[in-house]
């Protein structure tokens, strides 16, 4: 055990996006420069730790048993979009383009990092599908090898008959042209072209 300051710095450094120097800066900021902010932070962390949990249904972030999306009766409960992380759910929500429900896996199959099906939020997806309410599964996992393999796994082992499975499209970003796109993106954009008439 180091000093209280060193311990705080060590804990901060473990957070994503923070290196040794930024951790030191944050610690100094809270303890020396603006100590009045410390209590508010401690209180916010305590409350969040107590109140925030995984949504029983989708595995997203919730303060009740169900997350705001799952408890919203206006959403289309027959469509479920499978995403890798909570941040992906948030990004899709910001788009306001999707009115169905979600399912967050909290990862993707990655044998190299030792992540297998039992480490993902897959069992509850199976239960949701067996309940018979879901007609369509939208796979919004990344299109790298591990994301695609996870899609195969879900299609073959989780989604039973009677559920239509679709894959989110990959291609050019909106407002962007062909010129700045990298070759891989252009290839998937061409592969997923559609008739225009």
């Amino acid at each position, binding site marked *: 055990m180091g000093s209280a300051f060193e311990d705080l710095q060590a804990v901060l450094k473990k957070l994503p996006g923070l290196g040794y120097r930024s951790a030191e800066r944050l610690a100094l900021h809270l303890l020396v420069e603006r100590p009045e902010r410390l209590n508010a932070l401690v209180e916010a962390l305590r409350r969040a730790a107590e109140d925030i949990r995984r949504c029983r249904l989708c595995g997203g972030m919730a303060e009740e048993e169900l997350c705001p999306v799952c408890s919203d009766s206006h959403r289309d409960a027959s469509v479920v979009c499978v995403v890798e992380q909570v941040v992906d759910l948030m990004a899709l929500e910001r788009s306001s383009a999707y009115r169905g429900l979600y399912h967050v896996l909290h990862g993707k199959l990655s*044998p190299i990092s030792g992540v297998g*099906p039992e480490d993902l939020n897959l069992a509850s997806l199976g239960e949701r599908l067996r309940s018979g309410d879901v007609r369509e599964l939208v796979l919004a996992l990344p299109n790298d090898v591990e994301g695609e393999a996870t899609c195969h796994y879900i299609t073959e082992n989780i989604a039973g008959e009677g559920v239509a499975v679709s894959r989110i499209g990959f291609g050019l970003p909106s407002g962007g042209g062909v010129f700045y796109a990298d070759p891989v993106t252009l290839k998937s954009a061409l592969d997923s072209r559609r008739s225009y008439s």
Partner: protein
Amino acid sequence: MILRDVTLQNFRNVAEARLVFEGRRHFFVGANGQGKTNLLEALGYLTALRSFRTAENRLLVREGQPEAAAAYTFEHERFGRTRVTLRIGSRGNRTVHWDDERVSRLGDIIGRFPTVVFSADDIQLVRGAPGLRRRWMDLLFSAVDSAYFQVLQQYHRGLTARNALLRERAGAAELSAFEREMAGPASRLGKAREAGLRELNVSLEKAYRHLGGEDAAALLELRKPGSAAQAPEEWIERWCEGRDRDRQAGATQAGPHRDDLHFGLEGRSLARYGSEGQQRSFVIALRLAQADYVRAGTGLLPPLLLDDVTAELDGGRRERFWALVAGEAQVFATGVMRPELGDDAWRFCRVAGGTFAWESRIASGECGIRTAQ
């Protein structure tokens, strides 16, 4: 593509040198260890943004210096007169400027300034392990077709995942998920390799007949150990059938990563039955075919970098070799001795202790070695 000039600074044993290349054929003469190969290494570096001798970039920096630099002026089929500056730090970090603009994605450079290196070590392509031949093939096809490189990467990511699953004794469902991801790339790699080899073989056979001075058919063939497949579904089936065997081996036993290139001469194995001279001629013909392939695939004429290749050839082959490379391409050759080249288009340069001195030609009067300002 024609290299007009190059300036080197603290590159290997070259403290500072500026070389202006007039004409198309240049021969660098000097004793061993004077810097001939170092020069070729610098000339070939931009091809794949790596040295043909070492993967360790920091070795290219002259001892005790903070960085090595090389500046090139090209006459380029696509970009016209264009200038590229390369800097390599003593920790191996690299920056490239292209016409005074910093290249942010170094990968963008790869394949745009192709050269073909001929080295005495090329004989290892015949005698060495299959991995060497596969690597040569993959580098060549990737340089001409970036899609090939992407498919190769995709395949290898899937393969690494499957191998990890085999070692963990994971279940069939997980293996199947990754096998499906490997199948498309495996099938595309197989087709691309077959097509590439067909094209290479046309040039190879011609070059070998010229160089070897014998009417023998040289041929590259893809050999697929284990049970090879073609269509994606066939690969899925093979991997599924092979799971027990693969689990025991702890690695995937069938797939494009096991392909080998068979070098054949008149239908017989070159490695097993070929004479020294035949093997040497074959790899030189292979490099010439590589140059043709790059030209056909990219529209760029790659300069040839010949690192003391004729030392092991007999008189007849040597003569035919010099006649063969005296084509359109720019040629940079090295040797301990000044060879009989039988054509006066060559310019000679003496290399000693990292300095270069052109032998002046009558009425030329130009002295190539100038210290850069």
